[in-house]
């Protein structure tokens, strides 16, 4: 039973992934990616990692994908026709991806069949214990990472805004810089 669920979910996950790649419309890609994420969350459930599954949905579907959608909407990309690669490059991409799959699968083939025991898995509390004891430092480090990302994103946005303001203000930017920025835009 579980095995069939596994196969079904796997099928959906792979299908979703392929659709992400091959969809022309970015929004469609996003939808399929969300689908894949859901199937992966289901896999987590299968593996008895309920808490992780929940977090996964929240973070990926709830946050990251929304961000993607937001940017797509913001930049109005959903109806922009994306330049396609040439057929040759596409074939090369598919071949490379396929080869990577085949090669890795072949390389990672083990002689034995190993079953996964789902009984001894950490719940939210067990995970929390590990996370806040053994993995306390990385936990804090992630805060640094997020802080850095935040700072960076803000810095980029702020600089751009300031530049835009300068452009409006006119005389705030020296003549030479203005001409240069024009030159770069060409």
């Amino acid at each position, binding site marked *: 039973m579980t095995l069939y669920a596994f196969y079904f979910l796997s099928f959906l996950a792979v299908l979703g992934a392929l659709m992400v790649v091959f969809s022309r419309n970015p929004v469609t890609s996003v939808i399929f990616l969300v689908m894949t994420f859901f199937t992966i969350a289901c896999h987590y459930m299968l593996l008895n990692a309920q808490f992780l599954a929940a977090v996964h949905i929240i973070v990926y579907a709830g946050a990251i994908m929304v961000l993607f959608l937001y940017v797509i909407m913001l930049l109005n990309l959903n109806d922009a026709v994306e330049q396609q690669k040439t057929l040759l490059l596409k074939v090369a991409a598919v071949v*490379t991806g396929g080869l*990577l799959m085949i090669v890795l699968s*072949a390389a990672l083939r083990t002689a034995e069949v190993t079953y996964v025991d789902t009984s001894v898995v950490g719940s939210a509390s067990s995970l929390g214990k590990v996370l806040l004891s053994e993995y306390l430092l990385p936990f804090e480090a992630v805060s640094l990472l997020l802080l850095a990302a935040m700072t960076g994103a803000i810095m980029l946005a702020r600089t751009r805004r300031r530049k835009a303001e300068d452009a409006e203000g006119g005389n705030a930017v020296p003549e030479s810089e203005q001409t240069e920025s024009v030159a770069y835009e060409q």
Partner: protein
Amino acid sequence: MVGHESLWIIPLLPLAGFIAISLLNKRLGRSTVSVLAPGVVLAAFLLSVGVFIRLLSDPNMFLSTAGFTWFGSGTLSVSFSLLADRLSVLMMLIITGVGFLIHVYSTGYMHGDEGYNRYFAYLNLFIFFMLVLVMGSNYLLMFVGWEGVGLCSYLLIGFWFKNQDYNDAANKAFIMNRIGDLGMILGIILIFAHFGSIGYEQVFTAAALQESQPIITWIAILLFIGAIGKSAQIPLFTWLPDAMAGPTPVSALIHAATMVTAGVYMIARSHILYSLSPLALEIVAVTGVATALMAATIALRQNDIKKVLAYSTVSQLGLMFVAMGTGAYATGMFHMMTHAFFKALLFLAAGSVIHAMSGEQDIRRMGGLARHLPITWLTFLMGTLAISGIPPLSGFFSKDEILANAFAVNTWLWAAAAFASLLTVFYMFRLLFLTFKGQPRMGEEVKNHLHESPRSMTIPLILLAALSVAGGWINIPEVFGGGHAFNDYLAPVFADSQRLMATHHLSHATELMLMGIVVGVTVLIIVWAYRIYIALGRVPERDESTLRGMARLFNRKYFVDELYDALIVRPLYMFSQLLHDVIDRSLVDRLVNGAGVLVRWLSDVFRKVQTGNTGFYVFVMAAAVVLLITLKMLVL
């Protein structure tokens, strides 16, 4: 007999003269130089006489100095020390004696030349090196003198350095000598390798105890190559006629009397090595006779007064080598000595002629000079008679002995040598007649300036003429009841060889007969020459291109210069150019630069791979991963 440090004074005197003149060049007046330069040589001569007298007392006596170690390493040790035995003192006497006379002569001849001081400096330096050559106590010192005189010869041939032809002649002389010198130095190295020493004493003592063996032949041949170069034998003789570019006294001193005979001296010095090697002796003799013939034939058709004498010198040197090659070392030395007298005389007299003719050297523009230059004429006549072997002049005795020895060894050798010496008679008298007799053929202006040379020049002429006449009398053969004094004098020197060589003894009758034939034919030739050049008044054509056959061959010196030019000089330059253009620049250097070009090319390729396209970069990364996993996990 070590410890005669006073020997040093003899070579050092002329060296001091050289140093004084060259350092004080501008500050020394001509008159000072005129005294100083001949003075030191005269002093050296007098000291040599002193040595000579000391050596006369004891046949086996020799003097040597302790000297100092020049250089050395391991078993090689070269000492800088001098040695005087009967052989070297003979040479010293000739060098300083004739040298002195020529110095005196030069004070007149070079009068008015702007390089007067320089000239005498070189001349003194030459005397120094020549003395080192003959007085050195080992082969390397001989080599020092050997190359040193070569240098002086180079400097003096190119004395008038503004003339590039003269410079070319000087270069030619030096380089040809160097070819011989290479042989000589290799010979010396072989001596060192074989005997473990290069000192005369050690080598000769050791050699005297040895059997004949190939290595000694090689030594003898290599040394002889040196002699070929220095004494202008086939195939290295062409520099000597060109060397006439130098001032005439130089030709007399260096290219007739002393330096060119160094080869003869060298063989006399190394006689034991040659005596041990019959093959080497044969080579010496054959080379000598061939050179004698060749040079004599060439001389027949030369029209430059000095060139004729130069070829004559080559020819006479050939005769000396014939003597050496027949093992008659003393005879060779004897001829060397008489030749020094009469050839120096002839050159100086020729110089006197040139001096009078305002530099003209072509005998076709001379004639009838006997009236204007009586002393020169007479002395030149003496010289000519001497070289022609007219008894009882010096040349007769020396040449006769050579022929006699040659006859004893090989009749053909004798025939060739005799023929060469008869040719000598012809071209010498041709020269004499064309120069001094017949109708004057020079221009009026030259004719009006004709004058006998100053005293400083004529006195040496007279003295040398006297020596040319009387020089042979010290070695009057037994046939004429003489004591063979000269041979006896040198006998101790060659004693070791004497034991090794089979003694050829001609009966007096044969000897007399040979003499008779040669002298008889000589007289006939003189008459013939007189007939052609005086009675018939035949003067050689101005246009030499009309000459045909043998005459052309002789006139153009067998085309040897052209041959060398085509076979050696040009190919060498072409080969060098080829090495430079093809091997050096195009091959080796291009290989080296090719590495750079390759790197730049690769750089360009690698650079272009960096397309700036992120998709491509990612693709390469993914492909690399695939490749990596495949190779590492699946294949290997």
